[in-house]
C-alpha cells in the first residue's frame, strides 16, 4: 500500500515537474486586458489598453530605463542648441519590420504627423508645444518648440516612430488596421474585439525577444480575467482590484506583481463655489480624511501615503512640504469656526472610482459635521460637470492623475492653474510659479518653484493628494517581469522562469 502510494506520488511529482517545465518553456504569452485596443496606430489613441499593445510594435524616439531615467532609443543623443531648439542624433542601424531603413526622415515625419490637426489625434495636447521637426541630415533631426519647454523630453518618451513610406503608401486607415514599425514585435492578426496577436521580430536591433508569440485578449470582466489566470488561459492579467489580489496571493502557480506608479489618487475640493469656498472648510476636509486607514483597509496596502499631490517618480515632487495629518477634532473646530456645521457637500463620482472609497470618505466627512451627498454619474457626464462651470462642478470629487510624463508640470498645472478646465481655484502667485517652471530649462529653478507651488497648495487646499497608486497585475508564477512606474507593458522586459 505504502509502496503504491510512494510510486504514485513520485509519478505525480515527475508529471508536475514536466508540466511546469512545459509551462515555463512555452512560446506564447497570453495577456488579458480589460478592453480591446481602440487603435493600433500609435499616433491616435493614448489609453492603457491601446498602448499596452502598440508600444510593442514600435520604437520610441527616447525611452525610460527601469529606474525611470530618460535614455536613448531611436535617438542616440540630443542637445539643445538654444532654449527652443533641440537636435536629435538618430541611429543609422535600425530597420523597420519590412526591411526598410529607419532614417531621420521617419522621425521628423512622425513628429509632424502627430502635431498636424488634420490627424485629429487625441494625443495632440501632449505634443502641441512643438512647432515643427526638420531633417538636417539622414541622422539629424531638429525640433523647435514654441517657448522653452522643459517637459519636452518627458513627452517625447511617448512618441512612437512610424515608417513614413509605409504610412503614405497604405494610408491612415489601413495603417491603423495593419500597423508596422521597427519594434520588437510585429502584428500577426488583430481580431477586433477579441484579441491581438503579435510575433517576435527576429531582426530586432536592440535585444532578442525571449517570448516568441504574444496574445493580448480583451476580457472586460475582472472575475473572468481571474478565472483565465487560474486555468492558465492567461499568463498575465491587468487591472486587478486590491481585494482580489489579496485572495489570489496565496494560490499556488500565481504571483501578484505590483509597483508604485506615478499615478496619484487625489481629492479635488472646489475653492470657487459652495461651502468649500471657505478655505477653513477645505482644510477641515483635509484633516478629516484618515488616509493611512483608507490605504490599509480599502487598498489592502497597494498604495502609499503622499504628502502632496504628486509622487516620488515625478520631477518636481517634494518631501519637504508637510501633508495634512488625520485630526478629526481640528476638522470639527475649523468647521465650527467657519460656521459650516451641516453644510451640504456634493461628492461627484463615476464608475471609474472605487465606490467603497467614496463611501468611506463620505462617512469621514459626515463624522466631522458636514452633510455629504454622493452624486453618481457616468464617466462622460462626470467629466463634463467636473471640467465645466465651478458652480456645477460639485464640492469634492476623487481623481486618479497621471500625465504619463513624470513631471509636476503635467499634474499641478492642468489641475490648478487659473483657466484650466480642471481648476476650480485661482491664485496669481501659484500661477506665476507654475508658469515660470514650465518655461525654463533650469532644473534647479524648476524644483524650487514647484516646492513653493506645493506650499501654496497646502495652505489653500484646492485639492489633496491621498495616495500613490500601485499598478497591480496577476501573473503566472512562471512569468518573470518587473512592472514599471509608468504603467508600460513592454514584452521584451518579460521572460519565462521555472
Amino acid at each position: 500500500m505504502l509502496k503504491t502510494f510512494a510510486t504514485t506520488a513520485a509519478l505525480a511529482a515527475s508529471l508536475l515537474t514536466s508540466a511546469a517545465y512545459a509551462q515555463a518553456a512555452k512560446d506564447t504569452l497570453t495577456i488579458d486586458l480589460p478592453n480591446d485596443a481602440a487603435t493600433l496606430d500609435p499616433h491616435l489613441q493614448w489609453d492603457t489598453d491601446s498602448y499596452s499593445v502598440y508600444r510593442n510594435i514600435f520604437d520610441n524616439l527616447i525611452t525610460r530605463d527601469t529606474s525611470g531615467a530618460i535614455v536613448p532609443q531611436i535617438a542616440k543623443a540630443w542637445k539643445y542648441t538654444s532654449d527652443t531648439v533641440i537636435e536629435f542624433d538618430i541611429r543609422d542601424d535600425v530597420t523597420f519590420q519590412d526591411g526598410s531603413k529607419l532614417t531621420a526622415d521617419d522621425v521628423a515625419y512622425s513628429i509632424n504627423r502627430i502635431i498636424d490637426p488634420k490627424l485629429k489625434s487625441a494625443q495632440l495636447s501632449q505634443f502641441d508645444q512643438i512647432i515643427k521637426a526638420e531633417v538636417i541630415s539622414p541622422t539629424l533631426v531638429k525640433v523647435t518648440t514654441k517657448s522653452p519647454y522643459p517637459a519636452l523630453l518627458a513627452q517625447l518618451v511617448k512618441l512612437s516612430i512610424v515608417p513614413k513610406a509605409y504610412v503614405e503608401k497604405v494610408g491612415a486607415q489601413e495603417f491603423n488596421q495593419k500597423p508596422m514599425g521597427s519594434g520588437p514585435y510585429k502584428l500577426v492578426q488583430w481580431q477586433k474585439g477579441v484579441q491581438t496577436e503579435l510575433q517576435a521580430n527576429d531582426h530586432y536591433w536592440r535585444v532578442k525577444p525571449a517570448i516568441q508569440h504574444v496574445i493580448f485578449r480583451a476580457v472586460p470582466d475582472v472575475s473572468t480575467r481571474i478565472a483565465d489566470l487560474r486555468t492558465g488561459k492567461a499568463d498575465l492579467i491587468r487591472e486587478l482590484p486590491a481585494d482580489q489580489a489579496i485572495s489570489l496571493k496565496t494560490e499556488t502557480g500565481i504571483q501578484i506583481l505590483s509597483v508604485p506608479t506615478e499615478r496619484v489618487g487625489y481629492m479635488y475640493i472646489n475653492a470657487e463655489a459652495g461651502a468649500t469656498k471657505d478655505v477653513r472648510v477645505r482644510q477641515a476636509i483635509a484633516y478629516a480624511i484618515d488616509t493611512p486607514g483608507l490605504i490599509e483597509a480599502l487598498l489592502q496596502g497597494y498604495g502609499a501615503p503622499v504628502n502632496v499631490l504628486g509622487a516620488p517618480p515625478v520631477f518636481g515632487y517634494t518631501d519637504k512640504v508637510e501633508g495634512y495629518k488625520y485630526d478629526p477634532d481640528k476638522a470639527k473646530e475649523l468647521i465650527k469656526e467657519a460656521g459650516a456645521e451641516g453644510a451640504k457637500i456634493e461628492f461627484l463620482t463615476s464608475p471609474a472610482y472605487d465606490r467603497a472609497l467614496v463611501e468611506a470618505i463620505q462617512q469621514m466627512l459626515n463624522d466631522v459635521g458636514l452633510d455629504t451627498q454622493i452624486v453618481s454619474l457616468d464617466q462622460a457626464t462626470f467629466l463634463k460637470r467636473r471640467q465645466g462651470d465651478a458652480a456645477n462642478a460639485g464640492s469634492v470629487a476623487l481623481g486618479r492623475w497621471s500625465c504619463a510624463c513624470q513631471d509636476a508640470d503635467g499634474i499641478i498645472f492642468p489641475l490648478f492653474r487659473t483657466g484650466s478646465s480642471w481648476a476650480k481655484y485661482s491664485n496669481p502667485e501659484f500661477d506665476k510659479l507654475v508658469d515660470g517652471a514650465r518655461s525654463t530649462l533650469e532644473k534647479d529653478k524648476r524644483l524650487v518653484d514647484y516646492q513653493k507651488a506645493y506650499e501654496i497648495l497646502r495652505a489653500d487646499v484646492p485639492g489633496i493628494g491621498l495616495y500613490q497608486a500601485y499598478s497591480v497585475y496577476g501573473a503566472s508564477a512562471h512569468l518573470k517581469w518587473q512592472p514599471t512606474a509608468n504603467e508600460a507593458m513592454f514584452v521584451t522586459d518579460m521572460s519565462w522562469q521555472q
Partner: protein
Amino acid sequence: MLRYAGSRLIQAAIAIFGVLTIVFIVMHLSGDPTLLLVPQGASTQQINELRHQLGFDQPLWVQYVNYLKDLGHLDFGMSVVQHVPAAEIVASRLPYTMMLAAGALMVAIGIGIPVGIIMATGRGGWLEKVLAAIVLTGQSVPTFLSGILLIAVFAVNLRWLPTSGVGDIRALIMPSIALGAISMSTFARMTRIAVLDELSKDYVRAGRARGLSLGAVVFRHVLRNASIPVITIAALEIGNLLAGAVIVETVFAWPGIGQLAIQSIQSRDFLVVQVIVLLISCVYVLTSLLADFVYAAVDPRIRMVR
C-alpha cells in the same frame, strides 16, 4: 395581405426613425466624447480644438441634419474612437452575436418547449414540481451570477470548458446556457399555459372520448393550436437575445453587439451607437413582422380576418 404588409413596413420605418432621433438627442445632450479622448492634462483650448475637429461644437440640429444626410447616402460615419467606419465595426461583431443568439435559442426552445408540454400534461404530479423549480431557478438567477458560477464550476474546477472568449464550439456552450436560461423559462411557462388552455377545450375531450391517447391528442391537435402565443414569444425573444446579451457577453468576453454597445455608450462613440440602435430596431421590427406572417401560415383564421 400585400397592403397589410406595406402598412406594417411604413409603421416600422417611422418607429425606427423615431428611435434613431431619440437616441441621437439623448446621447448628444449627455456630453460628447472629447473629454474622454484627450489626455488628462489637456488645456481648455486644446479640448476645444479637438471638439472642433470632430465637429461636436456645431449646434445639435446641424449635427442632426448632417447625420440624416449621410444616412440618406447609407454613410454611417466614422467611429471617433477607433477611426474606422462605424458600420464596419458593428458588422465585425454581428456574427458573434448571431452565433450566441442561435446557441441560446437552441437551449431555450430545445429545453423550454418540451418542459412546458410535460408540465402541462403532467399537471399536479411530482415531475411538474421538480421542473417548476428548475424553471423558476432559470428565471430568477441573474446572468452575471450564473455566468460566474458556470465558469467557476465547469472551467476552473472541472476544466471541461474554456473560461472565456471565442474559439471552437466548446466556447459557445456556457454563454449559450447562461443567456438561454431566462428565455428557456419563458418558453416553458408560455408553452405550459398555452397547452393547458387547449387541454380544457371540447375537442380534446372529444378526442379522448373517441379513444385517442393523451399523447396523440397533444401531438396531433393541441400543439398546433397552442403554438400561436409561443411564436409571439419566440419573435420577442429573438430580439432580446440579439440585443440583450450585454452581461453575458461581458462576463464571457464574448465580442458581440451587446458588449460593443455598452462600450460605445460609455465612450460616447455616437455613430457606433447609432448603427447598433438602427440594427436592433430593425431586428425587433422584422421579427415581429415575421411572427405575424408565421401566424397566418399556422392559423388560416388570421389570414381570413385580414
